[in-house]
């Protein structure tokens, strides 16, 4: 059984990836780190994602070892510097 999670990308991430959302199928018991590794493993342009991105699961900041469940919303919070 795979676990579908709903990923969201904002600002520079959205621009560089060319998409604002993506559903990713993960193995049972997968964590945020597994999701990041799965995406980065797709190569360009997903390899622009940092290894330790700031991520919110269901609108709460999450550590990399946080487990993901079916239907979770994972938002990649982009670093933004402009002022």
């Amino acid at each position: 059984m795979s676990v579908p999670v709903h990923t969201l990308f904002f600002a520079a991430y959205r621009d560089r990836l060319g998409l604002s959302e993506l559903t990713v199928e993960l193995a049972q018991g997968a964590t945020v780190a597994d999701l990041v590794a799965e995406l980065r493993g797709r190569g360009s342009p997903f390899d622009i994602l940092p290894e330790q991105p700031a991520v919110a699961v269901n609108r709460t900041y999450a550590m990399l070892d946080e487990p993901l469940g079916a239907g979770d919303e994972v938002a990649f919070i982009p670093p933004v510097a402009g002022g």
Partner: protein
Amino acid sequence: MDHPELSRSELHRYARHIALPEVGLEGQLRLKAGRVLCVGAGGLGSPLALYLAAAGVGTIGIVDFDDVDASNLQRQILHGTGDVGRHKLDSAADRLEDVNPHVEVVGHPQRLTSENALEILKGYDVVVDGTDNFPTRYLVNDACVLLGTPNVYGSVFRWEGQVSVFATKGGPCYRCLFREPPPPGLVPNCAEGGVLGVLPGIIGSMQAMETIKLLLGKGVGLAGRLLIFDALEMTWREIALRRNPECPVCSDSPTQTGLIDYELFCGVTRPGEGSLHSAEDFEELDAASVAALLASDTPPYLIDVREPWEWAVSSLAERGARLIPLAELGDRLGEVPKETPVVVYCRSGQRGQSAARQLVAGGYGPVSNLSGGLLSWAESVEPGLPVV
């Protein structure tokens, strides 16, 4: 009769504040006693400083070393057309004095550095981060954590903004959220990526509001919450933040107890400066050297890594440049000949460094970057070349 600490004209000026139960006379006196440092007098710092001054915040410090440029005016409403070419601090002081002569504006005409940050920040109750680059954001955060001063954070990119309050007692800090700086080149700055002028107006006004709430000690602040604003969709997304128990600066047992070299930390170099990555296998060439190479019998392969709209305004196309925006370079490496020396350039030299690194990693070479970018080219080789 004058109130002991607010003059008759101040009482009149602040009447709509004093009418609020959450402010009142006591709150207005708190604002008058308040000392706020604005880091940056740009897009965010403009509405921020204007509203703080109008609100009667007694001491407003501003750190900025830039001059007003005409391209600032689309968003930096603190400055006017007649201020172009003036120091931003002079322009800001005049404008704020006009907005409210009862407040004191303190200028810090410096670049904030690890050497001067603690000294500059320590006299203030609240620090507001309105800077435009990652090294200064990490510097401001760490200095605020060390001093125990709240850091009212805002940042903008194109149509999107973020706002939060960091480094309050027990609350998370910027480093809890963004542990590592992004790799150079991932996030374009406003000059490269553009920004809709109203956006910093909205985010900077939110920062002003949070600052005033902190001074008053009223309401529910943004500590522990990050708001992400999307102006195109006109939505706000709220993210609950957490303190990272292993945060190097704000955890209970921090591994970093002083300020560090933030340029090095973020892996960036300033325009015109040599690369900090001395081990890297590309060369920084000044504009005159690049011009000489291009005029030689064996000119290098010249790549412009800026965005198409920048290219449309001016480029070195007549000298053989091809446009490959930095974001596309990885996918278009095949277009670059392997047997020829390559020179890359951008606007100020920073994207060129990222491109040069990619080319070196891809086995191209010898690779050089036009140091200081097209800006320095326009300064020394082709005066009058418009560069946006």
